């Protein structure tokens, strides 16, 4: 499977993070990239752009842009509700997108499911 966004910097960072920290294989990772691609279509942004809106460069590192993060957290919630299946499946799809942000350094948490 190949996608347009697979070779962007932030998607590569995500795939590497998934593989190194969570033991998710490349193939499995690429399936998730397809989900990210759907999300990118929803917000009409490229992956690198999404991350850039959530982080800004400062001396010696990066700082989280709270506004950008809030924006995308809300979009992820919308994305979740647009998906079929039960609460768990919806949430899992949303969590793939959260995982993309988290592996790129954007600390983001979500409420536990009731």
């Amino acid at each position, binding site marked *: 499977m190949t996608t347009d966004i697979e070779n962007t910097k932030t998607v590569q960072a995500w795939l590497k993070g998934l593989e190194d920290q969570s033991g998710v294989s490349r193939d499995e990772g690429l*399936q998730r990239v*397809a989900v990210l691609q759907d999300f990118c279509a929803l917000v009409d942004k490229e992956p690198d752009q999404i991350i850039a809106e959530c982080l800004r460069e400062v001396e010696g590192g990066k700082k989280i842009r709270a506004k950008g993060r809030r924006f995308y957290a809300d979009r992820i919630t919308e994305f979740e*509700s647009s*998906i*079929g*299946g*039960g*609460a*768990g*499946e*919806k949430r*899992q*799809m949303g969590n793939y997108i959260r995982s993309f942000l988290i592996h790129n350094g954007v600390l983001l948490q979500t409420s536990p499911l009731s």
Partner: protein
Amino acid sequence: MNDLKSCPSVQKWIENVNRYYNLSDEEWDSRLQTLADFCRSEEKDPDTVIAEALADRGEKVDFIRRLKKFVKTQTSNPRVGHDLENIVRSFFIHNGARVVTRPYRGDA
């Protein structure tokens, strides 16, 4: 969706599950959507599906085999597939058509 809700088998399903778990209306909407999609792929209404599965064990096994195929058309993600399958399995189980259910680990 309202058509679906008028089927006795679907009513029974919702009542049985909600007696213990009270799932939200939103969750029921998407569960019913999954069931509706499956029934459409079978070209049968839910009551017929249950009646056939209860009448003939072989037919029930065939339903589950086709359910697995159906799920593959919905997602390529094995876990999401397992969860989608479970929605339809739950529909069978709560209507008395016993089907084997497995946890994520092992060979479902």
